[in-house]
């Protein structure tokens, strides 16, 4: 059985598809820190410089989801579901002009998921 670290809700997929249509290829990057941090950011694929320190958590509707290595160390035991909510986060994330904001719901991995994903 295949286990995933991330998932996305149908409502969030709608927004994601809207953004793909407008901007082309996209990536998610998990932010940390102040204000609008600790939330997913979505950018045009070429906008953000990524390297080995960015961990690929998975792919959502063809969009890669990254998190920085040191943040990942504290998050890797949790499953993330990307959802969408009304709101007005600042930051450069592309959904903001739509009056919505991607957010994350987390849960602990089950024992089976843990064995498979964090052996």
């Amino acid at each position, binding site marked *: 059985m295949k286990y995933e670290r991330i998932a996305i809700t149908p409502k969030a997929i709608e927004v994601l598809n809207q953004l793909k249509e407008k901007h082309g290829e996209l990536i998610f990057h998990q*932010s940390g*820190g102040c*204000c609008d941090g600790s939330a997913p950011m979505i950018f045009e694929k070429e906008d953000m410089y990524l390297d080995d320190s960015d961990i690929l958590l998975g792919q959502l509707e063809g969009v890669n989801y990254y998190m920085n290595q040191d943040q990942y160390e*504290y998050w890797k035991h949790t499953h993330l579901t990307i959802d969408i909510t009304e709101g007005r*986060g*600042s930051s*450069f994330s592309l959904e*903001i002009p739509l009056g919505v904001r991607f957010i*994350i719901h987390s*849960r602990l991995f089950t024992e089976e998921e843990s064995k498979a994903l964090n052996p």
Partner: protein
Amino acid sequence: MGYSKPKFKDKYENFINGKFVAPVDGEYFDNNSPIDNTFIAKYPRSKKEDVNNAVEAANVAKDAWGNTSATERAAMLNKVADLIEANLEEFALVETCDNGKPIRETLNADIPLAIDHWRYFAAVIRAEEGSATELDANTLSMNIKEPLGVVAQIIPWNFPLLMLSWKLPPALAAGNCVILKPAEQTPSTATLLMEKIADVFPPGVVNIIHGFGPEAGKPLASHSKVDKVAFTGETTTGQLIMQYASKNLNPVTMELGGKSPNIFFNSVMDADDEFLDKAVEGAVLFAFNQGEVCTCPSRLLVQEDIYDAFMEKVIARTKAAIQANPYDVNTMVGAQASNDQYEKILSYIKIGKEEGAKVLTGGEACKLDGDLANGFYIQPTILEGHNKMRVFQEEIFGPVLAVTKFKDEAEALEIANDTLYGLGAGVWTRDAHQLYQIPRAIKAGRVWVNCYHAYPAHAPFGGYKKSGFGRETHLMMMNHYRQTKNMLISYDKNKLGFF
């Protein structure tokens, strides 16, 4: 004892080149109050063209402004301070409406502090000097400070006027022209300030652009005719801004938040006196400004032998905090600044519970009555757990405290420094050795010792590690907005003799 929602115009504009101007493409966005989710006003949804106009105006103004005397610039900064002070109540009320924070905070903290930062930098440039060194009998090295030129500043929504007043005065005092973008959640006090001070500075010296990050923030941060970018916000946007700056080889300063430890050693409970009372309040300061502070003391570390007795007091004091209408002067905890913040905080409380943290108080949204039922309120919450939990590692930016105990100094330091961030920390003790040694061993830019959440001008503020770099609220910040011109002068009449 109470206030109510202030009056606004239907629509506001950008402030460019000394005038209020509509956005080029005529688009606006609705700004709502988080207190009751009602409409405040429309603000410009600026785009690249608006940013270009502001950058152009600043570039035209920069040479003349850079050559004004320190006397003139200081007088203008003081005038801004006087104008805010003369309208303190109006600024406080608008800030409360826009951000959701209690009126007692805006009246007594946000606005008075903002005023003082303008005065501080007005004073700094009258007192500081360049330097000159006689390198040998005939050679003088002279250092003259020169402005960078045009500065872009992007500020957050947690202390809208105060963050503006941390950013604008040092840049202006140093002789730069500025384009500032307020956060789209809280555009109101920046606009009110421009209304009050429209004639204070020459056109183009101060420019305010409203709008969204991807549409207005990005073209501003990446603009080739901007000489420096200052940013307060989160890490991913911080990284992006540094990338853009790297294309222009521009300097940047970054303030990116933290997960600040607040450490209480057992000696705080040696006596039941004023100091213990102060210490308990110090622990409850996690709920100040609804936890929407970069230096929120969101990790509470308590020595194990006083843990139960101390926490009993902290929980009781937290429960006594009045969460009600932010316009009421007795209210201590108001609304979170936006719906997405509210949802994010609740989601963190949920994962905290799932990870096994024990809820000592709060743990849920706060439902207020009447008009406030549509606002974004969260109960001050204390979660007991351990430092590897996500609620101990991530900035929640809400009134959520994660508490754990430690055995001795070594363990306190190990936990305190086990974080990606290093902005603030608190140390509470009656032991004279700990008062010095513990703060020195904590990797953070600001350590409050037997106090917390004080932000006076004249004390430098900034981060270690992933909290960023640069030191604000201090004359040090001036050098983040300046170049050094070194003039190397020879008074020797004789040639080198090489050619």
